[in-house]
Each structure stands twice: as C-alpha cells, then as structure tokens.
C-alpha cells in the first residue's frame, strides 16, 4: 500500500495517466453516453460541488461511517484485551469470532433496518458490525504481544490490572491497533456506501444510486472518485498518526 510514497514521482504520474488515457480512449471509441469522457465527469463533479449537495452527502456518509468505526474500535479493543488476558473470555469469544468472521455481515442488513429503521442509525450499526472483526483480531494480537519480562516487571512492582492495561498492554498493542484501523477504514467506506444504496436518501452511496437511476453515470463516477480521495486521505491520516504515536518503532511503518 505504501507504493504511494515509493518510487519516482514521474512513474507514479505516468501510471495514473495510462489508466486515465485508456479510459478516455475507450469512452471516445465506444461513443456510449453511459461511458462518460473525463471532462464530463469533471464538469459533473464541479456541478455537484457547487450547489453544496456533494458536501452535505459526504458529511452524512462520514458521520455515520466514523461513528460506526469508533464504536467498533472501542468495543473491539476492550474485547481483544479481555480475551487476550483472561482464558474465560478467550474461551467464550473464540467460537463467536470464528463463526462471525466469515459471515457476510451485510446479510444481516435487512434485519438491522427492521430494528433500527432506514436512517443513519442502521448504517452506523452495520459499519460497526463489519469493522469489529478486523479490529478485534488486531487488538487481541497486540495484547498478546506483551513481552513476558514486562509482565514480570509489573508483578514485581505490584501494578494492578488497570495500571498494567494502561502503562504496558496499551502501548504494546498500539501499533497493532493502527494496523486494525488501516484495515477497517476501507471496510467502513464500502459498508457505508452499500448501505446508502437502500435508505433515507442520504450519503454518497445514495448519490451514486440516484445518478445511476437517471442514467447520469458521469455524476456517479464523480462521486466514486470522491470516495477514493476520502479513503486515501483517511489512510494517510492513520499512517501519519501511527508514526507520531508509535515513535519508538521507527522505520517499521506499514
């Protein structure tokens, strides 16, 4: 993933140009209004951006998405720590996680809508559900990574469980938690967008579905590009924070 910061700038730009150029050629040759040329997509983007529609829907998507991600992060981190430290929790959570991980959580969405309605609450819940698993796995691995001698040290100074969690387990698990976030952010964007296809007319997913319904694929592509940009931005933010907060592990950035 870090190819973004590796290699020469020229080659990076070249790669993007090749893809965009191929698309443009394909669009011109196909002469199909459903395959829009790049300038049409750009114009549609400006149109959507100008009347504030894009910003309003993006805000709705990000609010629901990050709310779900935050809930998943807090719950998964606590569950991961508990399972890693207590064999009772470990035994109880193990079958649940093994069973739950491979299930496509989106299959539950019709039931989530029945319970929570067609609004943002359902989308938030769905994002939390889907993001929980990768975050839990990382948190568990992180809490398990505490070096035995550090644990002995904690026992030697008679540190309580809260001390141990705050001063030893959390810092040890921190790099793992950031990895979890990097895995969970694209999942968050996917789930937010897909769940917005059905619902109460909010969010970037809704904008894509509506544009497609009116055969306005140029607008739909413009919104997809915005989603890509938001995803990239969020990912860079996580990488930047990781390097700031996990300063003692220099040069091991993901």
């Amino acid at each position, binding site marked *: 993933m870090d190819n973004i910061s590796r290699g020469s700038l020229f080659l990076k730009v070249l790669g993007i140009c090749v893809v965009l150029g191929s698309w443009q050629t394909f669009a011109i040759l196909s002469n199909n209004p459903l395959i829009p040329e790049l300038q049409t997509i750009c114009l549609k983007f400006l149109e959507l951006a100008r009347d504030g529609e894009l910003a309003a829907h993006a805000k709705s998507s990000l609010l629901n998405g990050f709310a779900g991600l935050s809930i998943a992060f807090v719950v998964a981190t606590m569950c991961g720590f508990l399972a890693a430290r207590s064999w009772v929790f470990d035994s109880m959570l193990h079958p649940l996680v093994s069973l739950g991980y491979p299930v496509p959580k989106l299959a539950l969405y019709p039931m989530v809508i029945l319970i929570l309605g067609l609004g943002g609450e359902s989308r938030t819940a769905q994002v939390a559900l889907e993001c929980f698993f990768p975050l839990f796995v990382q948190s568990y691995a992180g809490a398990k990574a505490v*070096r035995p*001698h*550090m644990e*002995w*040290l904690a*026992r*030697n*100074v*008679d*540190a*309580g469980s809260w*001390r141990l969690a705050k*001063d*030893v387990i959390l*810092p040890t698990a*921190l790099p793992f938690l950031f990895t979890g976030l990097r895995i969970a952010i694209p999942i968050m964007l996917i789930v937010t967008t897909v769940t917005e296809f059905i619902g109460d007319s909010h969010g970037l997913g809704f904008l894509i579905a509506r544009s497609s319904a009116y055969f306005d694929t140029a607008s739909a592509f413009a919104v997809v590009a915005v989603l890509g940009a938001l995803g990239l931005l969020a990912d860079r933010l996580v990488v930047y924070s990781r390097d700031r907060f996990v*300063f*003692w*592990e220099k040069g091991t950035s993901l």
Partner: protein
Amino acid sequence: MIELKGVAKTFQRGDHVVRAVTSVDLTIEGGEFVTVLGPSGCGKTTLLHMLGGFETPTKGTVTIDGQVVTGPGRDRGMVFQDATLFPWRTVSANVAWPLEVNGVPKRAARLQSAALLEKVGLEKFGNAFPGELSGGMRQRAALARTLAMEPSVLLMDEPFGALDAQTREIMQEELMRLWQESDLTVIFITHDISEAIFLGDRVIVMGVSPGRVIEDFKVELDRPRTAEARNDPRILEYRSHLWGLLAHAPSSPSGNGSQIT
C-alpha cells in the same frame, strides 16, 4: 536473612518430568553479596525465579526473615538480562514508574527518579528514550528503576551477560560501589567465573543433571573492593578451583536439566 530449605523444582514437559533444581539448602545473611555460578541448564535462573516469587517450588520452602515467599514483592527487586525498559517512556519516566504505581505524585516521583539516575551515572540522560541508549546505559537505567522500589534484596539474572567485556567490568565496579554504599542483599546469577569471584562474598557453584548446589565457596578478597581487586593473586587460585569444579561436574547431554520418565 533468606533461607531455602529442601527446595526442588520440577517442570512437566510433554510426557516427561524435568528436574530443574533438586534439594537446595541455602542460607543468605542480610547484606551479603552472593553470586550463583553454573553452566546453562543448572537451574540457577529457576532458583532466582523462586526467590523472586515468580515460580513456586515443587518441594521445600523459601523464607525471607521468617516469612514464606508466596509471590513477587517490592522487597525483592528483579533485574533482568535484557533491561526491560518501556521504549515509549523516557529514561526518567521508566525509573519513576514503580513510584507512580505506588501512588507517589508525579512531581515527587520525577525528583526521586532524578536522584536515582544520578546514583547510577545517568543524570544527563533522563530525557532520552531507551532506544537511544547503549546496552550498558540501559542496564544502569534498569538498576535505577529497581532501586526505586526500595527493595532489601536485589535479584540479578545475568544482567551484564549481553554487554561487551569492557562495559561489563565498568558495570561490575559500579555495582560494587552501589552495593557497598547500601545495605542491600544481592543474589547475582552468572556463568562468568571472573565475574562471580570479583563480585561475590560467596560463590554458590551449581551443577547440572540434576540442577543442584555442588559447592558453597567463600571469597576472601578484601572489602571494600575496587578495580584493584582484579589484580589480587588469590583470584587465579580461585579461578582454577572453580574451573575445575565446573569442568568435572557431570553435564547432561541436552544441557537442560535431567529427565525422569
């Protein structure tokens, strides 16, 4: 006073039992510096872990001033071979940690930590992170952190084993000085004969197959001891005696304790 009476420790490994330590009787007076010397697999580390309360003897008892050891405690400070500092805390915050855990307010803890760092010669490195220090400096910081617990006994598990020869000698002399200024009891594990002689009032020699004490050897070098003591002619005599003991002790082929099925 530390007393071990008939202390034995066996481990279950798969379907066989490993006798790490068998029937050790030992008395260590308060303020003594005792080194434990032996090849790997002789159970010297297991013995130290039982003194620390990290492992429980299978047989026998460990008592300190008449109290049976049932678990780790701040009266017995452990110094590990790897310094085991928190890489996310500054050196000074690492040293202050045992104080913070004990409820000492942050400011007071930092003041005490500064005094301890001065004691081990790290006063200029309080704001550095462990990753920026050399191996010897890290061990100094670890020692300061252990002293912050105000233990009466120091349990040291080959603390200088990973250091280069020169740093190791400097650290030995520093430890000597620190101990002589205090009333600490030190139990120091090593597999280095010279180190065992230079530091110890007594050298407990352990052998393998099974792990046991083969000799309780008294070192008659003068106290206080400084670097000068290294030139004492008696050291050669001691060395060849201890070398003979270690070389002629039977060793197990696995080097990892004896096995009973």
